[in-house]
Protein backbone atom coordinates (compact mmCIF):
# COMPACT_ATOMS: atom_id res chain seq x y z
CA UNK A 1 0.00 0.00 0.00
CA UNK A 2 2.79 2.41 0.98
CA UNK A 3 4.71 1.71 -2.21
CA UNK A 4 1.55 2.19 -4.30
CA UNK A 5 0.73 5.51 -2.62
CA UNK A 6 4.29 6.81 -3.10
CA UNK A 7 4.47 5.71 -6.73
CA UNK A 8 1.09 6.63 -8.13
CA UNK A 9 0.85 9.97 -6.32
CA UNK A 10 4.54 10.87 -6.85
CA UNK A 11 4.92 11.97 -3.24
CA UNK A 12 8.14 13.40 -1.85
CA UNK A 13 7.01 13.16 1.78
CA UNK A 14 9.36 11.05 3.99
CA UNK A 15 8.22 7.45 4.28
CA UNK A 16 8.33 7.22 8.07
CA UNK A 17 5.96 10.15 8.20
CA UNK A 18 3.51 8.46 5.83
CA UNK A 19 3.77 5.22 7.78
CA UNK A 20 2.54 6.92 10.93
CA UNK A 21 -0.39 8.50 9.10
CA UNK A 22 -1.38 5.26 7.36
CA UNK A 23 -1.25 3.37 10.66
CA UNK A 24 -3.66 5.89 12.24
CA UNK A 25 -6.09 5.50 9.34
CA UNK A 26 -6.04 1.69 9.48
CA UNK A 27 -6.70 1.86 13.23
CA UNK A 28 -9.61 4.22 12.63
CA UNK A 29 -11.18 1.98 9.98
CA UNK A 30 -10.83 -1.08 12.22
CA UNK A 31 -12.31 0.70 15.24
CA UNK A 32 -15.17 2.17 13.21
CA UNK A 33 -16.48 -1.24 12.11
CA UNK A 34 -17.54 0.50 8.94
CA UNK A 35 -16.90 -2.65 6.92
CA UNK A 36 -19.21 -4.67 9.14
CA UNK A 37 -22.27 -2.46 8.60
CA UNK A 38 -25.45 -4.49 8.19
CA UNK A 39 -27.37 -3.58 5.02
CA UNK A 40 -30.16 -6.13 5.61
CA UNK A 41 -32.77 -3.39 5.97
CA UNK A 42 -31.70 -2.11 2.53
CA UNK A 43 -32.56 -5.50 1.01
CA UNK A 44 -28.92 -6.53 0.56
CA UNK A 45 -28.57 -10.32 1.09
CA UNK A 46 -26.81 -11.47 4.24
CA UNK A 47 -23.42 -13.21 4.16
Amino acid at each position, binding site marked *: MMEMVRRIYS*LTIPEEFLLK*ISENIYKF*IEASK*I*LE*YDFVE*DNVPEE
Partner: protein
Amino acid sequence: MVDLAKTSIRGIHREVRSLRIKPTKIIEECLRRIHRLNDALRIFIHLSEEAIKHAEYLEKELEEGKCRSELHGLPIAVKDAFYTYDMPTTGGSIILKDYKPPKDAEVVRKLRDAGAIIIGKTNMHEFAFGVTNKNPHYGVTRNPWSIDRISGGSSGGSAVAVSVGVCIGGLGTDTAGSIRIPSALCGVVGYKPSNGLLSLDGVIPLSHSLDTVGPIVKTVDDVSITLNIMTGKVLTSQERVSEYEDRELRLGLPRKLIEEWVSDEVEEVFWRSIGKITSRSNCRIVDIEIEWFKTISDARYIIVLSESAAFHLKWLRNRWSEYDPDVRDRILGGLFITAPVYIQAQMIRKSLKRKFLKMMKNLDAVILPTVPIEAPRVEDEELIVKNKKIGVRRALLFLTECFNSLGTPAITIPCGLTKGNLPVGLQIATKPYEDTQLLEIAERFEGVLGRLPEPPIIR
Protein backbone atom coordinates in the same frame (compact mmCIF):
# COMPACT_ATOMS: atom_id res chain seq x y z
CA MET B 1 -25.34 56.28 13.55
CA VAL B 2 -26.87 52.85 13.09
CA ASP B 3 -25.19 49.90 14.80
CA LEU B 4 -25.43 46.80 12.60
CA ALA B 5 -24.97 44.57 15.66
CA LYS B 6 -28.36 45.73 16.94
CA THR B 7 -30.42 45.55 13.77
CA SER B 8 -31.54 43.15 11.04
CA ILE B 9 -31.63 43.30 7.25
CA ARG B 10 -35.31 44.26 7.16
CA GLY B 11 -34.80 46.78 9.96
CA ILE B 12 -32.04 48.73 8.26
CA HIS B 13 -33.37 48.28 4.73
CA ARG B 14 -36.25 50.69 5.43
CA GLU B 15 -33.74 53.36 6.52
CA VAL B 16 -31.43 52.77 3.56
CA ARG B 17 -34.19 52.69 0.97
CA SER B 18 -35.44 56.07 2.12
CA LEU B 19 -31.83 57.35 2.30
CA ARG B 20 -32.25 58.27 5.97
CA ILE B 21 -29.10 56.17 6.36
CA LYS B 22 -26.69 56.24 3.44
CA PRO B 23 -24.72 53.17 2.28
CA THR B 24 -21.46 55.20 2.27
CA LYS B 25 -21.96 56.08 5.95
CA ILE B 26 -22.65 52.43 6.81
CA ILE B 27 -19.46 51.27 5.07
CA GLU B 28 -17.37 54.03 6.71
CA GLU B 29 -18.69 53.04 10.14
CA CYS B 30 -18.04 49.32 9.48
CA LEU B 31 -14.46 50.01 8.33
CA ARG B 32 -13.84 52.10 11.45
CA ARG B 33 -15.02 49.25 13.67
CA ILE B 34 -13.03 46.67 11.69
CA HIS B 35 -9.85 48.71 12.18
CA ARG B 36 -10.56 48.88 15.90
CA LEU B 37 -11.25 45.15 16.34
CA ASN B 38 -9.42 43.20 13.66
CA ASP B 39 -6.02 42.93 15.37
CA ALA B 40 -7.59 41.44 18.47
CA LEU B 41 -10.18 39.19 16.85
CA ARG B 42 -8.56 38.29 13.48
CA ILE B 43 -11.84 38.54 11.59
CA PHE B 44 -10.64 39.43 8.07
CA ILE B 45 -7.88 38.20 5.77
CA HIS B 46 -8.60 40.86 3.10
CA LEU B 47 -10.63 44.05 3.08
CA SER B 48 -12.17 45.37 -0.11
CA GLU B 49 -10.51 48.48 -1.50
CA GLU B 50 -13.61 49.09 -3.62
CA ALA B 51 -16.26 48.97 -0.90
CA ILE B 52 -16.70 52.75 -0.63
CA LYS B 53 -16.78 53.08 -4.42
CA HIS B 54 -19.47 50.39 -4.62
CA ALA B 55 -21.43 52.14 -1.87
CA GLU B 56 -21.29 55.46 -3.76
CA TYR B 57 -22.61 53.78 -6.91
CA LEU B 58 -25.44 52.03 -5.06
CA GLU B 59 -26.29 55.25 -3.21
CA LYS B 60 -26.65 57.03 -6.54
CA GLU B 61 -29.04 54.29 -7.70
CA LEU B 62 -31.18 54.89 -4.61
CA GLU B 63 -31.22 58.62 -5.30
CA GLU B 64 -32.53 57.77 -8.77
CA GLY B 65 -35.27 55.63 -7.21
CA LYS B 66 -33.71 52.26 -7.98
CA CYS B 67 -33.59 49.68 -5.19
CA ARG B 68 -32.41 46.22 -6.19
CA SER B 69 -33.42 44.23 -3.08
CA GLU B 70 -33.45 44.29 0.73
CA LEU B 71 -29.65 44.00 0.60
CA HIS B 72 -29.18 47.15 -1.52
CA GLY B 73 -26.20 49.08 -0.16
CA LEU B 74 -25.57 46.73 2.78
CA PRO B 75 -22.20 45.12 3.64
CA ILE B 76 -21.69 41.37 3.52
CA ALA B 77 -18.57 39.54 4.77
CA VAL B 78 -17.53 36.50 2.75
CA LYS B 79 -15.49 33.54 3.96
CA ASP B 80 -12.21 33.37 2.10
CA ALA B 81 -13.24 30.08 0.48
CA PHE B 82 -15.52 31.88 -2.02
CA TYR B 83 -14.11 33.28 -5.26
CA THR B 84 -14.22 37.06 -5.54
CA TYR B 85 -13.11 38.86 -8.69
CA ASP B 86 -11.77 41.88 -6.79
CA MET B 87 -9.95 40.22 -3.89
CA PRO B 88 -7.64 37.19 -3.54
CA THR B 89 -9.13 33.88 -2.36
CA THR B 90 -6.71 32.07 -0.06
CA GLY B 91 -8.87 29.35 1.48
CA GLY B 92 -7.12 30.40 4.68
CA SER B 93 -3.87 28.97 3.29
CA ILE B 94 -0.43 30.17 2.29
CA ILE B 95 -0.55 27.88 -0.76
CA LEU B 96 -3.24 30.11 -2.32
CA LYS B 97 -2.16 33.42 -0.79
CA ASP B 98 -1.82 35.13 -4.17
CA TYR B 99 -4.67 33.39 -5.96
CA LYS B 100 -6.87 35.86 -7.84
CA PRO B 101 -9.97 34.07 -9.13
CA PRO B 102 -11.26 34.97 -12.59
CA LYS B 103 -14.82 35.53 -11.33
CA ASP B 104 -17.11 35.64 -8.33
CA ALA B 105 -18.57 32.47 -6.86
CA GLU B 106 -22.14 32.04 -8.09
CA VAL B 107 -23.72 32.97 -4.74
CA VAL B 108 -21.42 36.00 -4.34
CA ARG B 109 -22.43 37.19 -7.80
CA LYS B 110 -26.10 36.89 -6.87
CA LEU B 111 -25.55 38.89 -3.69
CA ARG B 112 -23.71 41.62 -5.61
CA ASP B 113 -26.44 41.69 -8.29
CA ALA B 114 -28.91 42.24 -5.45
CA GLY B 115 -26.94 45.31 -4.36
CA ALA B 116 -24.87 43.83 -1.52
CA ILE B 117 -21.40 45.26 -0.92
CA ILE B 118 -18.70 42.64 -0.28
CA ILE B 119 -16.73 44.38 2.45
CA GLY B 120 -14.02 41.75 2.90
CA LYS B 121 -12.91 38.12 3.02
CA THR B 122 -13.06 36.49 6.41
CA ASN B 123 -10.61 34.29 8.30
CA MET B 124 -11.23 30.57 8.34
CA HIS B 125 -9.73 27.25 9.36
CA GLU B 126 -7.21 26.35 6.67
CA PHE B 127 -9.03 24.90 3.64
CA ALA B 128 -12.14 24.62 5.87
CA PHE B 129 -10.67 21.41 7.30
CA GLY B 130 -11.19 22.08 11.00
CA VAL B 131 -13.65 23.63 13.40
CA THR B 132 -11.51 25.80 15.71
CA ASN B 133 -10.40 28.63 13.34
CA LYS B 134 -6.91 28.43 14.86
CA ASN B 135 -5.18 29.48 11.67
CA PRO B 136 -1.35 29.46 11.81
CA HIS B 137 -1.07 31.85 8.84
CA TYR B 138 -3.73 34.48 9.56
CA GLY B 139 -4.15 34.16 13.33
CA VAL B 140 -6.68 32.65 15.72
CA THR B 141 -10.17 34.06 15.24
CA ARG B 142 -11.24 34.95 18.76
CA ASN B 143 -14.66 34.94 20.33
CA PRO B 144 -16.17 38.42 20.87
CA TRP B 145 -17.91 37.15 24.01
CA SER B 146 -14.56 36.28 25.60
CA ILE B 147 -11.39 36.88 23.65
CA ASP B 148 -9.44 34.14 25.41
CA ARG B 149 -11.77 31.69 23.65
CA ILE B 150 -12.06 30.53 20.03
CA SER B 151 -14.79 31.60 17.66
CA GLY B 152 -15.24 28.07 16.34
CA GLY B 153 -14.97 27.37 12.66
CA SER B 154 -14.35 26.88 9.94
CA SER B 155 -16.44 29.94 9.05
CA GLY B 156 -15.33 31.69 12.26
CA GLY B 157 -14.45 35.04 10.70
CA SER B 158 -17.91 35.44 9.16
CA ALA B 159 -19.65 34.56 12.44
CA VAL B 160 -17.56 37.07 14.41
CA ALA B 161 -18.08 39.75 11.75
CA VAL B 162 -21.86 39.41 12.09
CA SER B 163 -21.70 39.22 15.88
CA VAL B 164 -19.74 42.50 16.24
CA GLY B 165 -21.77 44.30 13.57
CA VAL B 166 -19.13 45.01 10.93
CA CYS B 167 -21.53 43.65 8.29
CA ILE B 168 -25.23 42.82 8.09
CA GLY B 169 -24.58 39.21 7.08
CA GLY B 170 -21.87 36.73 6.28
CA LEU B 171 -21.31 33.79 3.98
CA GLY B 172 -19.91 30.48 5.19
CA THR B 173 -19.44 26.90 4.10
CA ASP B 174 -20.61 23.87 6.08
CA THR B 175 -19.33 20.32 5.58
CA ALA B 176 -19.64 19.07 9.16
CA GLY B 177 -20.95 22.12 11.01
CA SER B 178 -18.67 24.95 9.86
CA ILE B 179 -21.51 27.49 9.66
CA ARG B 180 -23.52 26.31 12.67
CA ILE B 181 -20.64 25.81 15.13
CA PRO B 182 -19.15 29.35 15.03
CA SER B 183 -22.64 30.85 14.77
CA ALA B 184 -23.68 29.07 17.96
CA LEU B 185 -20.48 29.98 19.83
CA CYS B 186 -20.71 33.64 18.76
CA GLY B 187 -24.45 34.05 19.40
CA VAL B 188 -25.77 34.52 15.85
CA VAL B 189 -28.01 32.62 13.43
CA GLY B 190 -26.33 30.16 11.05
CA TYR B 191 -28.04 28.20 8.33
CA LYS B 192 -26.95 25.10 6.45
CA PRO B 193 -29.40 24.49 3.60
CA SER B 194 -30.35 21.12 2.09
CA ASN B 195 -27.42 19.72 0.14
CA GLY B 196 -27.60 21.02 -3.43
CA LEU B 197 -29.94 23.94 -2.75
CA LEU B 198 -27.23 26.61 -3.16
CA SER B 199 -24.57 26.60 -5.86
CA LEU B 200 -21.02 25.52 -4.96
CA ASP B 201 -19.64 27.01 -8.17
CA GLY B 202 -16.57 29.09 -7.29
CA VAL B 203 -16.19 27.69 -3.78
CA ILE B 204 -12.95 25.92 -2.77
CA PRO B 205 -14.13 22.39 -1.99
CA LEU B 206 -13.42 20.38 1.12
CA SER B 207 -15.59 17.36 0.36
CA HIS B 208 -17.69 17.69 -2.77
CA SER B 209 -20.46 15.29 -1.75
CA LEU B 210 -20.95 16.90 1.68
CA ASP B 211 -20.15 20.61 1.13
CA THR B 212 -22.87 23.24 1.45
CA VAL B 213 -22.83 27.04 1.61
CA GLY B 214 -25.14 29.30 3.58
CA PRO B 215 -25.74 32.57 5.39
CA ILE B 216 -24.69 33.69 8.88
CA VAL B 217 -26.97 36.50 10.05
CA LYS B 218 -28.81 38.02 12.99
CA THR B 219 -32.35 36.69 12.55
CA VAL B 220 -34.25 33.88 10.86
CA ASP B 221 -35.95 36.47 8.65
CA ASP B 222 -32.46 37.53 7.48
CA VAL B 223 -31.82 33.89 6.49
CA SER B 224 -34.99 33.93 4.39
CA ILE B 225 -34.04 37.17 2.66
CA THR B 226 -30.52 36.04 1.75
CA LEU B 227 -31.68 32.56 0.81
CA ASN B 228 -34.31 33.92 -1.58
CA ILE B 229 -31.63 36.08 -3.21
CA MET B 230 -29.05 33.30 -3.48
CA THR B 231 -31.47 30.70 -4.85
CA GLY B 232 -33.19 33.21 -7.12
CA LYS B 233 -36.53 31.83 -5.89
CA VAL B 234 -39.09 32.98 -3.36
CA LEU B 235 -38.71 30.12 -0.88
CA THR B 236 -40.14 32.15 1.95
CA SER B 237 -42.08 35.36 2.23
CA GLN B 238 -43.88 37.30 4.93
CA GLU B 239 -47.16 36.80 3.07
CA ARG B 240 -46.81 33.02 2.97
CA VAL B 241 -49.58 31.12 4.76
CA SER B 242 -48.08 29.10 7.59
CA GLU B 243 -48.20 25.36 7.20
CA TYR B 244 -48.21 24.89 10.95
CA GLU B 245 -50.44 27.75 12.08
CA ASP B 246 -53.16 25.69 13.76
CA ARG B 247 -51.35 22.43 14.13
CA GLU B 248 -49.29 20.99 16.95
CA LEU B 249 -45.60 20.64 16.04
CA ARG B 250 -44.02 17.28 16.83
CA LEU B 251 -40.37 17.70 17.77
CA GLY B 252 -37.98 14.75 18.00
CA LEU B 253 -35.48 15.16 20.85
CA PRO B 254 -32.51 12.78 21.32
CA ARG B 255 -32.67 12.98 25.11
CA LYS B 256 -30.25 10.16 25.89
CA LEU B 257 -27.59 11.56 23.58
CA ILE B 258 -27.94 15.01 25.16
CA GLU B 259 -27.82 13.68 28.71
CA GLU B 260 -24.72 11.63 27.92
CA TRP B 261 -22.70 14.07 25.84
CA VAL B 262 -23.76 17.68 26.45
CA SER B 263 -21.94 19.67 29.14
CA ASP B 264 -23.85 20.75 32.24
CA GLU B 265 -23.51 24.46 31.34
CA VAL B 266 -25.01 23.99 27.87
CA GLU B 267 -27.62 21.48 29.04
CA GLU B 268 -28.98 23.94 31.59
CA VAL B 269 -29.55 26.65 28.95
CA PHE B 270 -30.93 24.14 26.45
CA TRP B 271 -33.57 22.65 28.80
CA ARG B 272 -34.62 26.13 29.89
CA SER B 273 -35.20 26.98 26.20
CA ILE B 274 -37.16 23.78 25.62
CA GLY B 275 -39.31 24.71 28.59
CA LYS B 276 -40.03 28.14 27.10
CA ILE B 277 -40.79 26.68 23.67
CA THR B 278 -43.17 24.00 24.94
CA SER B 279 -44.99 26.35 27.28
CA ARG B 280 -45.45 29.18 24.79
CA SER B 281 -45.83 27.41 21.48
CA ASN B 282 -48.11 24.63 20.28
CA CYS B 283 -45.69 21.72 20.15
CA ARG B 284 -45.01 18.33 21.65
CA ILE B 285 -41.64 16.77 22.47
CA VAL B 286 -41.16 13.18 21.32
CA ASP B 287 -38.10 11.35 22.68
CA ILE B 288 -36.09 9.72 19.91
CA GLU B 289 -33.04 7.46 19.90
CA ILE B 290 -30.44 7.81 17.17
CA GLU B 291 -28.49 4.62 17.75
CA TRP B 292 -26.53 5.09 14.50
CA PHE B 293 -24.98 8.39 15.58
CA LYS B 294 -21.40 7.07 15.73
CA THR B 295 -21.73 5.10 12.50
CA ILE B 296 -22.75 8.11 10.44
CA SER B 297 -19.94 10.13 12.02
CA ASP B 298 -17.36 7.51 11.05
CA ALA B 299 -18.73 7.27 7.51
CA ARG B 300 -18.58 11.05 7.14
CA TYR B 301 -14.96 11.14 8.28
CA ILE B 302 -13.96 8.51 5.67
CA ILE B 303 -15.75 10.50 2.96
CA VAL B 304 -14.20 13.86 3.91
CA LEU B 305 -10.69 12.41 4.10
CA SER B 306 -10.99 10.67 0.72
CA GLU B 307 -12.55 13.58 -1.15
CA SER B 308 -10.21 16.20 0.32
CA ALA B 309 -7.15 14.06 -0.53
CA ALA B 310 -8.33 13.86 -4.15
CA PHE B 311 -8.67 17.65 -4.38
CA HIS B 312 -5.36 18.41 -2.63
CA LEU B 313 -3.24 15.89 -4.52
CA LYS B 314 -1.63 18.55 -6.70
CA TRP B 315 -0.26 20.39 -3.65
CA LEU B 316 0.54 17.32 -1.55
CA ARG B 317 3.25 16.36 -4.06
CA ASN B 318 5.55 19.33 -3.63
CA ARG B 319 4.00 21.85 -1.24
CA TRP B 320 3.12 19.60 1.67
CA SER B 321 5.31 21.56 4.08
CA GLU B 322 3.23 24.72 3.56
CA TYR B 323 0.08 23.32 5.21
CA ASP B 324 -0.95 23.61 8.84
CA PRO B 325 0.49 20.22 9.98
CA ASP B 326 -2.78 19.25 11.64
CA VAL B 327 -4.77 19.84 8.43
CA ARG B 328 -2.13 18.21 6.22
CA ASP B 329 -2.03 15.01 8.28
CA ARG B 330 -5.78 14.56 7.95
CA ILE B 331 -5.72 15.19 4.21
CA LEU B 332 -2.79 12.77 3.76
CA GLY B 333 -4.78 10.14 5.63
CA GLY B 334 -7.26 10.16 2.76
CA LEU B 335 -4.60 8.70 0.43
CA PHE B 336 -4.68 5.46 2.42
CA ILE B 337 -8.42 4.91 2.19
CA THR B 338 -9.19 2.38 -0.53
CA ALA B 339 -12.09 2.74 -2.97
CA PRO B 340 -14.21 -0.05 -1.40
CA VAL B 341 -13.99 1.62 2.03
CA TYR B 342 -15.00 4.99 0.55
CA ILE B 343 -17.92 3.42 -1.35
CA GLN B 344 -19.02 1.52 1.73
CA ALA B 345 -19.09 4.84 3.62
CA GLN B 346 -21.27 6.40 0.91
CA MET B 347 -23.60 3.37 0.97
CA ILE B 348 -23.90 3.64 4.76
CA ARG B 349 -24.81 7.28 4.34
CA LYS B 350 -27.65 6.35 1.99
CA SER B 351 -28.84 3.55 4.25
CA LEU B 352 -28.91 5.81 7.31
CA LYS B 353 -30.71 8.51 5.38
CA ARG B 354 -33.50 5.99 4.77
CA LYS B 355 -33.58 5.20 8.50
CA PHE B 356 -33.72 8.91 9.31
CA LEU B 357 -36.63 9.49 6.91
CA LYS B 358 -38.49 6.57 8.48
CA MET B 359 -37.91 8.06 11.94
CA MET B 360 -39.13 11.46 10.71
CA LYS B 361 -42.43 10.12 9.34
CA ASN B 362 -44.39 11.40 12.33
CA LEU B 363 -42.09 14.29 13.23
CA ASP B 364 -41.85 17.86 11.96
CA ALA B 365 -38.30 18.50 13.15
CA VAL B 366 -35.45 17.31 15.32
CA ILE B 367 -34.27 19.66 18.05
CA LEU B 368 -30.99 19.54 20.02
CA PRO B 369 -28.12 21.80 21.12
CA THR B 370 -25.86 22.91 18.25
CA VAL B 371 -22.61 22.43 20.16
CA PRO B 372 -22.34 20.36 23.35
CA ILE B 373 -19.80 22.67 25.02
CA GLU B 374 -19.22 26.39 25.59
CA ALA B 375 -16.64 28.07 23.35
CA PRO B 376 -13.32 26.43 24.38
CA ARG B 377 -10.28 28.45 25.47
CA VAL B 378 -7.68 28.96 22.74
CA GLU B 379 -5.20 26.60 24.40
CA ASP B 380 -7.73 23.80 25.08
CA GLU B 381 -7.04 20.55 23.20
CA GLU B 382 -9.16 18.19 25.31
CA LEU B 383 -12.09 18.70 27.66
CA ILE B 384 -13.93 16.65 30.25
CA VAL B 385 -17.64 16.41 29.48
CA LYS B 386 -19.86 14.29 31.74
CA ASN B 387 -16.73 12.64 33.20
CA LYS B 388 -15.52 11.66 29.72
CA LYS B 389 -12.39 13.00 28.06
CA ILE B 390 -13.13 14.36 24.57
CA GLY B 391 -10.99 16.22 22.02
CA VAL B 392 -12.10 19.80 21.29
CA ARG B 393 -12.54 19.12 17.54
CA ARG B 394 -14.62 16.00 18.17
CA ALA B 395 -16.78 17.80 20.73
CA LEU B 396 -17.43 20.81 18.52
CA LEU B 397 -18.79 18.87 15.55
CA PHE B 398 -20.40 16.05 17.53
CA LEU B 399 -24.00 17.26 17.12
CA THR B 400 -23.79 18.96 13.72
CA GLU B 401 -21.97 16.57 11.37
CA CYS B 402 -24.75 14.00 10.95
CA PHE B 403 -27.00 16.53 9.16
CA ASN B 404 -24.39 16.99 6.41
CA SER B 405 -24.33 13.26 5.79
CA LEU B 406 -28.13 13.14 5.79
CA GLY B 407 -28.34 16.15 3.43
CA THR B 408 -30.96 17.85 5.58
CA PRO B 409 -31.29 21.57 6.23
CA ALA B 410 -30.28 22.61 9.77
CA ILE B 411 -30.24 25.93 11.57
CA THR B 412 -28.77 27.27 14.79
CA ILE B 413 -30.49 30.08 16.65
CA PRO B 414 -29.21 31.65 19.89
CA CYS B 415 -31.12 30.30 22.89
CA GLY B 416 -29.40 31.95 25.84
CA LEU B 417 -26.19 32.53 27.75
CA THR B 418 -24.41 30.22 30.18
CA LYS B 419 -23.47 31.35 33.69
CA GLY B 420 -20.10 32.26 32.18
CA ASN B 421 -21.89 34.65 29.78
CA LEU B 422 -21.21 32.55 26.69
CA PRO B 423 -23.81 31.95 23.94
CA VAL B 424 -25.58 28.62 23.42
CA GLY B 425 -27.16 27.62 20.12
CA LEU B 426 -30.35 25.64 19.58
CA GLN B 427 -30.22 23.43 16.50
CA ILE B 428 -33.29 22.48 14.48
CA ALA B 429 -33.29 20.13 11.48
CA THR B 430 -36.02 18.83 9.19
CA LYS B 431 -36.19 16.36 6.31
CA PRO B 432 -34.14 17.14 3.16
CA TYR B 433 -35.63 19.95 1.05
CA GLU B 434 -37.99 21.08 3.80
CA ASP B 435 -36.00 24.32 4.05
CA THR B 436 -39.10 26.49 4.00
CA GLN B 437 -40.75 24.53 6.79
CA LEU B 438 -37.55 24.63 8.85
CA LEU B 439 -37.35 28.42 8.62
CA GLU B 440 -40.96 28.71 9.65
CA ILE B 441 -40.38 26.59 12.76
CA ALA B 442 -37.13 28.44 13.58
CA GLU B 443 -38.85 31.82 13.29
CA ARG B 444 -41.55 30.68 15.68
CA PHE B 445 -38.97 29.55 18.28
CA GLU B 446 -36.90 32.69 17.78
CA GLY B 447 -39.99 34.69 18.72
CA VAL B 448 -40.24 32.76 21.98
CA LEU B 449 -36.53 32.83 22.86
CA GLY B 450 -35.77 36.44 21.92
CA ARG B 451 -32.41 37.90 20.86
CA LEU B 452 -29.13 38.03 22.74
CA PRO B 453 -27.56 41.36 23.70
CA GLU B 454 -24.47 42.50 21.75
CA PRO B 455 -21.17 40.86 22.77
CA PRO B 456 -19.25 42.69 25.54
CA ILE B 457 -16.39 43.77 23.25
CA ILE B 458 -18.63 46.32 21.47
CA ARG B 459 -20.82 47.41 24.36
